[in-house]
């Protein structure tokens, strides 16, 4: 199979998956509680008012019409209206998403670097104390609720040591403005990148300080699987002939391990990154809530408090679409890097 036909086949497979997911979320919100509109009002509400409320949200139409509206809306990038103020949910989603993306990127960097370094160290000291302690750490990291770790981090680094802020994304009013060329303005919404584009080291330092604890927390909780993966992979690779040959040529041990052997672990790590992306987003929801990080997860949790079911539906659908697109991208990248997968 050529790369092109693989990509086409993979995309065709993604479409039914997305459709199933959209239908599932639609049914959960419309059918599971009976009527999301009545559920929104905790107490009895004037039927006239309820009908008006439903009409504004399109919840008075028959289910099949609602379903068609919902799908055609999504095609236009419309994630529905909020039950609270009838504003389009998509606006909120798009303004909160960069914060989540930035957290996810930095957490990924920490997760991979900690995971790979510890995994390599464990494999080099196979069956000794460092190896055992690293394995215990890897297993224990699964068992820690991310928000508990976050709370401990806040307690130690923010409250007692005053090293990092306990929450939020930046000092109010200090949001970086991004790139300005003449009258042209462009910003990504990722504060670290925007501070660099603005050329403001003060804002850069501040963005990093605010980012540090949340991304460290999320990265540490998810790094266990990479410790295990790297360790297992390295234990096998270090036995192979090409590693012995590299050593025999007198290369430094560090070059042999990181420059030669570790390359073999690259593809499995990439695959695992794709698989872990969903876990990363789920972890981000809790991390954002812990650190009052103004991203999508926090928006979702806020909406729960307001019983804003249409907004909850919008955010959940958005999460699903992001995961589907990322896993598609990872699979295509994988097929490109490793031709064996295409056959």
């Amino acid at each position: 199979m050529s790369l092109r036909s693989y990509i086409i086949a993979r995309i065709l497979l993604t479409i039914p998956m997305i459709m199933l997911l959209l239908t599932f979320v639609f049914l959960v919100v419309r059918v599971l509680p009976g009527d999301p509109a009545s559920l929104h009002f905790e107490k009895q509400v004037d039927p006239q008012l309820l009908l008006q409320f439903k009409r504004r949200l399109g919840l008075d139409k028959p289910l099949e019409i609602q379903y068609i509206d919902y799908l055609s809306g999504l095609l236009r990038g419309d994630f529905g209206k909020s039950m609270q103020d009838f504003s389009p949910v998509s606006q909120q989603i798009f303004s909160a998403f960069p914060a989540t993306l930035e957290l996810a990127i930095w957490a990924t960097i920490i997760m991979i670097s900690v995971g790979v370094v510890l995994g390599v160290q464990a494999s080099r000291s196979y069956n000794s104390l460092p190896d055992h302690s690293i394995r215990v750490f890897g297993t224990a990291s699964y068992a820690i609720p991310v928000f508990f770790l976050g709370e401990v981090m806040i307690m130690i680094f923010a409250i007692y040591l005053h090293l990092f802020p306990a929450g939020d994304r930046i000092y109010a009013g200090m949001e970086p403005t991004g790139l300005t060329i003449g009258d042209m303005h462009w910003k990504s919404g990722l504060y670290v990148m925007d501070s660099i584009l603005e050329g403001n080291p003060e804002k850069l330092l501040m963005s990093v300080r605010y980012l540090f604890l949340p991304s460290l927390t999320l990265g540490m909780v998810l790094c266990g699987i990479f410790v295990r993966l790297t360790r297992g992979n390295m234990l096998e690779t270090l036995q192979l002939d090409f590693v012995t040959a590299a050593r025999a040529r007198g290369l430094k041990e560090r070059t042999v391990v990181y420059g030669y052997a570790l390359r073999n672990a690259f593809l499995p790590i990439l695959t695992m990154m794709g698989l872990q992306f969903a876990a990363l987003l789920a972890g981000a929801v809790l991390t954002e809530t812990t650190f009052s990080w103004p991203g999508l997860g926090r928006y979702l949790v806020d909406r729960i408090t307001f019983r804003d079911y249409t907004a909850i539906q919008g955010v959940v659908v958005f999460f699903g679409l992001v995961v589907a697109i990322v896993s598609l991208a990872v699979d295509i990248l994988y097929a490109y890097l490793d031709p064996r997968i295409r056959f």
Partner: protein
Amino acid sequence: MSDERPKGRIVVQLFPALKDLTRRGLAGWVILAGATVVSLIAIMTVISPWISPYNPIDINVGPILSPPSSQHPLGTNHLGQDMLSRVYSGGAIMFQVAILSVTVCIVVGVPIGLFASYTGGYTDKVASLVMDSIYAFPGLVLAIAIAAMLGPGVVNMALSIAVVYVPSYFRIIRSQVLTIKELPYAEAARMMGATGRSTLFSYILPNVIPSIVAVATINFADAILTAAGLTFVGLGLPISTPDWGWDLTYGRRLLTSGTWWVITFPGLMVVLLALGFTLMGEGLSELFNPRLQR
């Protein structure tokens, strides 16, 4: 083919593997360690009404936010509740939710997995597609959506968690059945005239059970962490129930005043319980299927 056979096989498959755990190397010790931690916490939870110095939901049994002292060894929270008593009894909810959701997962996931993978063809493709779609979704986000719609309660919480984890069972069963049904002994059974149903239940199922046990054990840990997560985003049980998740949720707001004891002890209990199940699950996976990766 008598009817006794399958039952006999199950016993032969599962229990001898668990005998003499101390002589089975590291995996055996890991299972024992995990089982010990889980049992101790379970015992503590069961006997909590007798060992708790105070009623865990009574407010103002002491001064509010008192640090650990001889009166309140683990301190008190912002409602003046005794944290030691809350730590003793806060696991009951975790156990209930986890047991219920794992049971639902097994009851739903195992039959679908067996049937789809043994039948193959169109049924298998459709079931796999549905399960893969759910599996690919961020589990907690899906559980949040379902729990938000269903409303609070132990059963609703367990159901929303179960929906997320059914695919894990489906996948492990499917991959096992696909391998086992091509093995010579399964083929021999079919050649000797065993019907599809008896091949599935008498010959294939017994060999899948160890994997189900391993997955279910790891799933206990996931269910506990997800339940704590649901509570943390505000979808937990009402305040009248002692719950480690609730303490972790409300303790977050007390951190700024330097109150460390409200989150620390319940948090450690969640970690210990999840760790106990994880260790058991990992040991079991290694024992039953050394190549199985999580």
